[in-house]
């Protein structure tokens, strides 16, 4: 007992309650932060504390490296996670939705972060069992660092500037790592042109993670149709088209690889089969688009104009093969995968930012 540090628990509680009272929280307790803690985070980057990691011109607010560090510390990050948090901000900037006020939208999106490369092992990010779930400090706190910054630096509190109708559970935190070791294909960042020894964060503004059960089949076409069916669901169609990231469990990835399918083969098949019939769209009143917003609505609506597939019975939900990304995550223990429903039509290169090495003086 004598080895334990002596602290005044009443004082600790008082500090933590003060954070709640100030609204500096996502609802869970946050770590108290002192200037010396912030210094430890700032030592992990070559960037200056006043450099801007992301600006929201419409709010006339910006987040500096220092503010990102404070919120990462409050989220429970260790200082060595901070380069990953900064890469996440770079990826979000590159993606471009956040500056356009997506975090204030009624849709209620969350930023899903995907981490690749050696940094996963170095800081202990989970890429295997329960990858979307809880239990791992880097996953839990890196995602939370982004959310706390949205609340504290940009003031995006629910019922105020955050107008999400329902939001989604990933708004607490959403950070996964690719299970590169059990993927039959090149790692996601390598596929997109980065070096295998580098680490990277990909940002995906997302609405849902939809679960796929397929333990029954060894036929790649059957599994790929299950994936395409999930992607094309009419409920996801606010716009004319959608985009998705297929998060394959290692067992499903292996099934495709054994059948000789690479990522492009799967992408091509899903692109071709992710469509709705005109009849299915008519049944839910989404068989046309608004001439003003291009949102889907009924052809009976006075604002409606025909969609891009007008006159066809087959209405694709993906604009191109590149609107589908593929990543391998989770445990190699069952036929379970997921579709991450990403926001917007996409089709270009994903928003990947390299994780910069910490300054030599910090290690």
């Amino acid at each position, binding site marked *: 007992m004598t080895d334990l540090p002596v602290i005044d628990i009443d004082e600790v509680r008082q500090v933590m309650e003060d954070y709640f009272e100030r609204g500096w929280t996502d609802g869970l307790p946050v770590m108290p932060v002192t200037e010396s803690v912030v210094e430890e985070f700032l030592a992990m980057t070559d960037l200056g504390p006043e450099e801007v990691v992301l600006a929201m011109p419409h709010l006339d607010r910006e987040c500096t490296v220092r503010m990102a560090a404070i919120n990462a510390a409050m989220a429970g990050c260790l200082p060595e996670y901070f380069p990953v948090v900064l890469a996440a901000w770079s990826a979000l900037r590159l993606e471009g939705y956040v500056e356009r006020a997506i975090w*204030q939208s009624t849709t209620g999106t969350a930023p899903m972060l995907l981490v690749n490369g050696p940094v996963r092992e170095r800081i202990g990010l989970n890429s295997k069992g329960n990858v979307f779930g809880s239990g791992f400090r880097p996953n839990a706190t890196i995602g939370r660092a982004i959310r706390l910054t949205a609340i504290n630096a940009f003031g995006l509190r629910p019922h105020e500037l955050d107008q999400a109708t329902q939001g989604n559970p990933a708004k607490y935190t959403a950070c996964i790592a690719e299970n590169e070791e059990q993927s039959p294909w090149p790692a996601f960042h390598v596929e997109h042109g980065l070096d295998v020894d580098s680490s990277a964060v990909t940002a995906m503004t997302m609405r849902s993670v939809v679960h796929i059960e397929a333990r029954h089949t060894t036929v790649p076409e059957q599994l790929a149709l299950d994936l395409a069916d999930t992607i094309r669901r009419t409920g996801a169609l606010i716009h004319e088209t959608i985009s998705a990231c297929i998060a394959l469990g290692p067992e499903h990835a292996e099934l495709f690889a054994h059948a000789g399918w690479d990522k492009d083969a799967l992408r091509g098949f899903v692109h071709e089969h992710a469509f709705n019939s005109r009849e299915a769209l008519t049944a839910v009143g989404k068989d046309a688009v608004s001439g003003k917003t291009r949102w889907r609505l009924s052809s009976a609506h006075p604002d409606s104009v025909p969609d891009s597939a007008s006159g066809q019975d087959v209405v694709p939900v993906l604009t191109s093969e590149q609107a589908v990304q593929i990543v391998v995550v989770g445990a190699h223990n069952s036929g379970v995968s997921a579709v991450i429903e990403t926001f917007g039509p996409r089709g270009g290169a994903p928003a990947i930012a390299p994780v910069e090495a910490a300054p030599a003086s910090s290690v």
Partner: protein
Amino acid sequence: MLERAGVPAVSICTDAFAAPARAMAEMYGLPDFEPVMIPHPIASLSRAEIEANVAPAIVDVVRVLLGAS
């Protein structure tokens, strides 16, 4: 923005967005800015229902515009 440029402006939103509308106005340093509220919703209403909801708000629109000039 228009108000700052000296152009009288009015912001119209449904009552579901009262809180964010106030928050945005305060953030722009216009705590007295008065958005005109109409009943929610809009998207699921017919043209006639929308017109019925909007008609009573016209008086407020004019009042805010004249007051702002």
